[in-house]
């Protein structure tokens, strides 16, 4: 079994069990650590998870190129590009509010270190070696490695490790704060694992979760730009292409990622059925919404419309013309001030959608109002009205206020990041006004 899930008392141990391959996560198992951690999140009897590798040689390392190529038959086209381990977890702790401890019992290289960086606490055996060594294979680190490492260790050290492909010892890793503790090799992973103690009896799980969520929210509020930018860059399978094209890229932009758009177009898309999306929205709305009192402000409503094109969801925006007094050329949800003649914010959102983009109310399945959003300067309280389009509606931008209607096939993805936010090629329906 390539992945072993064990629970003892309240501690779950997830072991990458491919010691013959330095516990590299193979194509067959590349999503399973995430799924296993999801399982930990769901089980109330599990308080803490320990992620480790089998044997004493390695925690985990990146797949070899031949393993990458084995994911898809030679010459085959299409299909989904498998994720790298941790790729889904650009903010892995967002959904995992229980402590995750990495017990690093040997090499943690490339994907192995990226996986470790996804964990909250890291304990290393004394012979462990750490590195983001992807540049040695003419690729750049993925799965958040280029973001998390600089946030974890001093920038100069992160630069050295990433740009030079340098490795560091467990002792050095401890000194720079990459790991919390170093344990003797005797017993190897077992010793490291032994440090993955269960939260004390006084550490109430809910308090631990709340504390972790507070940390996550704080870190999320800092700019995560690099995650999105990195995701638009070539992955491991692009290594031969990056080697071949590196000089040309350098001439053009000096960046190995200058070809990102063409790669991002091939980014895997997770289909989210309309029923699944409706269920998610309904669940969110069922929690109750944040309704603000006006307190002198003006009530406005916008229609946040999900449309399905080719089985993929997209959000609909109108691009304002250059003729409007404010927000020229900007993207916005159709909407405006709630008028006295409007019976509700829903009516106002539908009316505005009709006026601005020619969307008929009959083509809209309204799901309900979402949290109010106040504007501080213009003094509005805006209510987003969430809705699904029935079928594939026609949009007719008015040409005065809205120049065109746009959407993105993959702006929404289930359990994955909306990669297409960075790919202009993903615009699915850019119908310009005929006026």
């Amino acid at each position, binding site marked *: 079994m390539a992945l072993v899930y064990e629970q003892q008392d309240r501690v779950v141990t997830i072991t990458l069990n491919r010691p013959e391959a330095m516990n590299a996560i193979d194509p067959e198992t590349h999503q399973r650590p995430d799924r296993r951690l999801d399982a930990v999140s769901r089980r109330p009897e599990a308080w803490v998870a320990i992620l480790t590798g089998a044997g004493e040689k390695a925690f985990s390392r990146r797949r070899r190129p031949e393993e990458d190529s084995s994911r898809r038959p030679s010459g085959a086209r299409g299909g989904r590009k498998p994720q790298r381990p941790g790729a889904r977890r650009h903010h892995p702790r967002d959904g995992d509010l229980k402590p995750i401890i990495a017990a690093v019992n040997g090499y943690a290289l490339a994907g192995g270190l990226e996986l470790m960086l996804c964990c909250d606490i890291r304990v290393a055996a004394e012979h462990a070696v750490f590195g983001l060594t992807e540049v040695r294979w003419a690729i750049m680190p993925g799965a958040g490695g280029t973001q998390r490492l600089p946030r974890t260790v001093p920038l100069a050290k992160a630069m050295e490790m990433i740009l030079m492909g340098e490795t560091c010892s467990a002792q050095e890793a401890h000194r720079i704060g990459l790991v919390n503790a170093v344990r003797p090799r005797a017993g190897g992973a077992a010793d490291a694992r032994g440090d993955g103690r269960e939260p004390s009896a006084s550490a109430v799980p809910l308090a631990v979760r709340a504390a972790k969520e507070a940390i996550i929210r704080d870190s999320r*509020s800092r*700019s*995560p730009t690099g995650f999105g930018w990195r995701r638009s860059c070539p992955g491991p399978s692009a290594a031969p292409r990056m080697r071949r094209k590196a000089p040309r890229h350098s001439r053009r932009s000096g960046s190995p990622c200058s070809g990102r758009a063409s790669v991002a177009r091939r980014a895997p898309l997770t289909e989210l059925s309309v029923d699944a999306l409706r269920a*998610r929205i309904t669940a969110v709305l069922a929690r109750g919404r944040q309704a603000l009192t006006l307190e002198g402000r003006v009530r406005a409503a916008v229609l946040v419309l999900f449309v399905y094109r080719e089985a993929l969801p997209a959000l609909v925006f109108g691009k304002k013309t250059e003729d409007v007094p404010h*927000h020229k050329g900007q993207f916005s949800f159709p909407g405006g001030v709630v008028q006295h003649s409007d019976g509700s914010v829903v009516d106002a959102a539908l009316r505005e959608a009709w006026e601005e983009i020619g969307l008929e109310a009959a083509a809209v399945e309204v799901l309900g109002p979402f949290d109010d959003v106040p504007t501080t300067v213009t003094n509005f309280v805006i209510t987003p009205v969430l809705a699904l389009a029935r079928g594939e509606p026609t949009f007719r931008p008015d040409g005065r206020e809205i120049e065109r209607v746009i959407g993105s096939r993959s702006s*929404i993805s289930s359990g994955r990041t909306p990669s297409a936010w960075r790919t202009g090629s993903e615009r699915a329906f850019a119908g310009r006004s005929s006026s």
Partner: protein
Amino acid sequence: MEDWEREGVRRQVVFVSYGEDVVWGTTGRILRELLDALFPEVSAVQGTA
């Protein structure tokens, strides 16, 4: 996310890249909060700058 000051009011402004364009301001904020709520398991605003 950027801190902007306008008419003496300091506030955070969300920017979300959309192809070559940017969704920002209140629309970006609504988008971010919605995607955060719908997909808590992922960072819903990878394009936040």
